[in-house]
């Protein structure tokens, strides 16, 4: 899970984008840069978790609209808003729309690093949640029930009694669920399930 994620850089100013790439590569990050909102939305793989450095002022569809589309697409991206004019209203608005952070140009390396760390964390969390949801969708109704009891902390015997089935049946189901959810053991399954229900 902790391989480094890519950074999408959306800025129409080639000079700034080049400089920003130089800085980010100095931080050891992989950068994909885009010259317009349209290019980014059309070309980027939005299913991959990543961080986005999004300039507010873009020709064509501007930063706000790009941010809006990313939300609509339900992409697992940690979005950082960049602006050359620190507009408080805009900052508040973009945070409300779920931006991770709001940075005013010229951004310092340290602030950039901090914001990117949060953006990566957000993207990973989102991707993790999505994976768990997708896996949970493959469970049968009975398996789902078993998983819920496990997460409540019941033993096999307890579950068997509650569902009026044999302990052996519970054991079989339980190991199937652990396997399907990609968990190492029952304890991990309980943790995954709690995260799903949260």
């Amino acid at each position, binding site marked *: 899970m902790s391989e480094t994620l890519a950074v999408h850089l959306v800025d129409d*100013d080639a000079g700034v984008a080049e*400089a920003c790439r130089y800085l980010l590569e100095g931080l050891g990050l992989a950068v994909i840069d885009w010259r317009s909102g349209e290019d980014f939305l059309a070309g980027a793989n939005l299913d991959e978790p990543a961080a986005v450095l999004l300039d507010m002022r873009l020709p064509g569809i501007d930063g706000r609209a790009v941010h809006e589309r990313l939300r609509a697409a339900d992409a697992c991206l940690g979005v950082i808003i960049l602006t050359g004019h620190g507009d408080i209203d805009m900052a508040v608005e973009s945070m409300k729309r779920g931006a991770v952070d709001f940075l005013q140009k*010229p*951004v*310092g*390396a340290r602030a950039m690093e901090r914001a990117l760390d949060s953006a990566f964390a957000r993207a990973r969390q989102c991707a993790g949640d999505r994976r768990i949801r997708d896996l949970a969708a493959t469970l049968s109704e009975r398996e789902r029930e078993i998983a819920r009891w496990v997460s409540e902390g019941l033993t096999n015997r307890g579950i068997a009694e509650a569902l009026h089935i044999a302990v052996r049946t519970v054991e079989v189901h339980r190991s199937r669920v652990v396997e399907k959810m990609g968990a190492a053991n029952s304890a991990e399954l309980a943790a995954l399930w709690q995260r799903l229900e949260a």
Partner: protein
Amino acid sequence: MALLGPVAATAAHALDSDGGHAIVNAGDVTVGILAPRGEAHTLAQWQATLDALGDAIPRITLTARAMTLDGIAAAVAQGEVDFVLTNPGQFVLLGTPYALSWLATLRSNPANSARAALGSVLWVRAESPYRRAEQLTGRRIVAVHERAFGGYLLMRPELQAAGVDSDEIAVDFLGYPVDALVYQLRDGQAEAAIMPVCMLEQMVSEGLVRRDDFRALATDEPLGGCVSSTPAYPDWTFAALPHVSEALTGDVARRLLAMDGEDTARWGAPVSAARVATLFDDLALHLLGEPLSTRLMDALQRYWHYSVAALVLLAMALMYHAWLQRKARRHGRALEATQLALRERERELADAQSLNVSGELATTLAHELNQPLAAIRHYAEGSVLRLQREAPDSPLLEPLSRIGHEADRGAGIIDQARQWIRRDAPAPERLPLHGLLDHVRALAQPRLKRLDVALDRSIQPDNLAVLGNRLAMEQVLGNLIGNSLDAFEAADRCGWIHIDARRAADPGQVTLTIRDNAGGFSPERLARPFMPLDTTRAQGMGLGLVITRRLLQRQGGDISVGNHARGGAEITVRIPSAEASQ
């Protein structure tokens, strides 16, 4: 040591200086000398110089009179002296109005040039805690006179530059001699003293005080071995009054320049006092250095009959004006009120627009400048990161990180300028669209009529209202109708503008659609409708749509532009509705 009083004033109705004096060429000649250290000290100091002058020009008998600043000013005004020897500040103040001629500039210290000999020093006691001028706020400071050149006058701009407001410090002006200031400072009656440069050092050399007891808050170049807190100004000037004959003036000037400086003073060619004049302009001093209020009172007393006449005239004019007003009001009060309100609103809109234009320009400029600054900072910090890995003790690390800081500082300056120009938007209010559109139409009426354009509207439902700032909404609609009228004017055709208002699909929003048949936007304009600094109009800055969008976004609305099939522009504005509980 008693202070010198001003020269005995003659009666109030004395003749003016140009009225009473014969040309002086011989006989008794009086020299008025500024006496910062008191009479005895001054006369002793200059005696040798005046004796040498008197010996060299046998036809005159020289008398020296030690004087205060006010005394010299009065004596020059009354023509009671023939020559003056004073500081350049006073020379500039008196020189022009009394047509003094400048004979020689003192070279009091051979180590100095005559151009840079005078300054002021801010002295404190050596053991006092003060290190900077601004710490003296609220403490007792002593000085000679508020118009003493080698003293308070020179110090004031320095204090202001150090952030000490002249209102915040209590300066007591004790008058001459300067010695009294030094004693008060030494004995703790004052916390600081403003003194002419070299004065304290001279008292030290005379054995009057100990140098170690004092510390100067010096901020400037030392002057010939003396500390100075101010830039240097020219030395004292020997000048002749206009009633002295040219022959005598020439003789005196020649003799002064010929002095060897053994026991007399040493003199040089007169030095320009342009810097002094500039300083005075900065200080906004008046010709005779009197406060404006005093001069006003003087003028009023002198010309009281004119003043009374003017007042009577003014009163009559006012009465006449009031009568006219009443008559006008009787004629068309309602009409006038409407006109006034309209004009007032028009002016407000124009103000708002121009503020917005400058704000928008500043924003654009800030953004454009921020881009290269951002690039600079990124490159600098990217380089620092690489160097830290590859050559951690490189001497380049320090300057590189400074480049980053400086870029940041530049951005901060831009940001401050931008914030200063921006105004905060007031709270939104409920605006019924009927009233709003009526008002905008009234404002545009003259142009609509001239260009023969019909403006009509439909509002569904009839009582639809939006939530926004009145002035901003008027500006938005005014800009859009104005743009449309510009297009009609450019295309030289008449036609129609239609405004349609209805609830938007999105609850809590109202949609306004504005269509015209003036030809619509060009493809280039449609590609980048909201990019500032390009315009299809010869005049104007292409900011109209940018500002309109900015105003709408600030009110939670938005705008999109396009063309419709029947050959015209179609602009869609969304704005929060006042209906739904928000």
